[in-house]
């Protein structure tokens, strides 16, 4: 019986490791692109709202705390506290998403969008010359005349926001998934299914939730605080 608990836990940790590497790929990509566009990334990050990021960090840290308290309550067979703390965790997750919603809609309005949809006009950065890839093969455009100024482009800026949306988006997706499983655990906890003899689901969901928190711990300084 303890055997089964341990097995599930190993399974969960292995799953978390795959999550770490999944996000890790994005972190490495972000790092490489930052090395490629140091100036653009610093400029672009100034468009993020620092206090919103900090607020979300605090919210997630608190939710991690309430989560671990819920696990603790389950371990002590305290149903009411379990339900309370699980509910608090879900509330925190929702607050996080609401703040994210405001952040995102602001970005959308200003045109700070990923990749080719980047349309912010404020920095007066001329756009890259557009090239239709299919044209290129048969009919290559003429080489630029010597001395002609090389076109500036939004490359670094658009890439920053691509990564911003990919990483916070994937993270947000994990928060959403977290809300779903937390609700499932909450319902089961409310039915009184968990006690000190059996609380594997609460424990595993807790591990998952802490990992989501941990990823944000790295996302926050990388996006909102870089110099």
């Amino acid at each position: 019986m303890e055997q089964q608990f341990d097995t599930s836990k190993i399974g969960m940790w292995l799953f978390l490791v795959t999550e770490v590497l999944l996000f890790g790929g994005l972190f490495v990509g972000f790092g490489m692109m930052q090395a490629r566009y140091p100036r653009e990334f610093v400029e672009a990050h100034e468009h993020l709202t620092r206090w919103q990021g900090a607020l979300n960090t605090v919210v997630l840290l608190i939710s991690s705390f309430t989560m671990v308290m819920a696990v603790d309550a389950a371990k002590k067979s305290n149903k009411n506290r379990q339900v309370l703390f699980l509910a608090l965790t879900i509330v925190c997750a929702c607050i996080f998403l609401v703040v994210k919603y405001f952040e995102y809609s602001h970005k959308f309005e200003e045109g700070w969008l990923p990749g080719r949809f980047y349309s912010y006009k404020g920095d007066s950065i001329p756009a890259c010359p557009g090239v239709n890839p299919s044209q290129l093969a048969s009919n290559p455009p003429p080489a630029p005349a010597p001395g002609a100024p090389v076109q500036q482009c939004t490359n670094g800026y658009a890439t920053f926001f691509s990564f911003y949306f990919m990483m916070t988006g994937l993270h947000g997706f994990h928060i959403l998934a977290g809300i779903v499983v937390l609700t499932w655990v909450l319902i089961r906890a409310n039915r009184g299914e968990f006690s000190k003899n059996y609380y594997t689901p609460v424990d595993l969901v807790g591990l998952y939730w802490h990992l989501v928190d941990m990823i944000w711990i790295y996302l926050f300084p990388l996006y909102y605080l870089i110099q």
Partner: protein
Amino acid sequence: MDWVRRLMMPDIQGSEYAKQIDFLYMSLFWLCVVLFIIVTVPPVYFAWRYRYKPGRVTPHDTHNTPLEITWSVIPLLMCVGIFFWGLKDWMEYAVAPGDAMEIQITAKKWLWQFEYPDGSRTINDLHVPMNKPVKFVMTSEDVIHDFFVPDMRVKHDIIPGRYTEVWFTPIAHGEHVITCAEYCGKGHSDMRAKLTVDNDAEFAKFLETGGTEWEDYFSGKDPNKTPADWGRIQYETKGCNSCHTIDGTRSKGPSWKGIWGKMERLNNGQLVLVDENYVRESMLYPQAKIVEGFEPIMPTFQGLLKENQIRGLIAFIKSLQ
């Protein structure tokens, strides 16, 4: 034993470097033959020698530490040796000598464009002088390609948005194959070019005409490649466009639009007909006749423009009616 080498490597060793690579390759080959015999002959022999006999009792040999250490350490030492040998030869490939002649390569689907130090250009036809190091600085206009000369045993990817470099010193006179070794689509396997290693006299003659690309424009085979198109390329690449417009607006020099066949007034009051001779003279001796109202600022293009390029420019101006 050269026939064994010829069995595996390209017959021609186009450079001293190629000879080195072949020596390394053949050394590794014989080493691997020996290793192959060591690891595969015993199992096959054992399979026959210890073939099944009912009732035979097999020994319970679980391990033999000294033996196992031996067959771990000896391969390790061998690997270290091979690595350093490979590194030594590779260093030569990796660093081009400072005095190497530079040829620029632009690859695109699916052709090679070569540009020589004097600005001459060729398509799919590379000429290099014998016994002189040549360095290639390469970039791509679309996807990744790879410059591969089997006879020289060199290869390097050509990456869009960046320059990469490769070099060799050809010693084998004659023709060789250049081929693309990085998959680039439909025409990948046809993306071939001819490498001709010239002696000094041949190479000088080749440069005199500014490459071979111009021939396409004068052959009349391709309706999209007329002498006037060749002239337009010169207009854009040789800097004519910084002073002469082709839409009639005034710049530092007279616009070329509609200039052909006109009588131009010079700053000494004379009139001159814009024809082949005048245009040619303006390019080679620009100070001889200055059109009224313009500064005598044009530099001479003597030596910079090949005969075929002048002909192209004349055809281009003619076409701007």
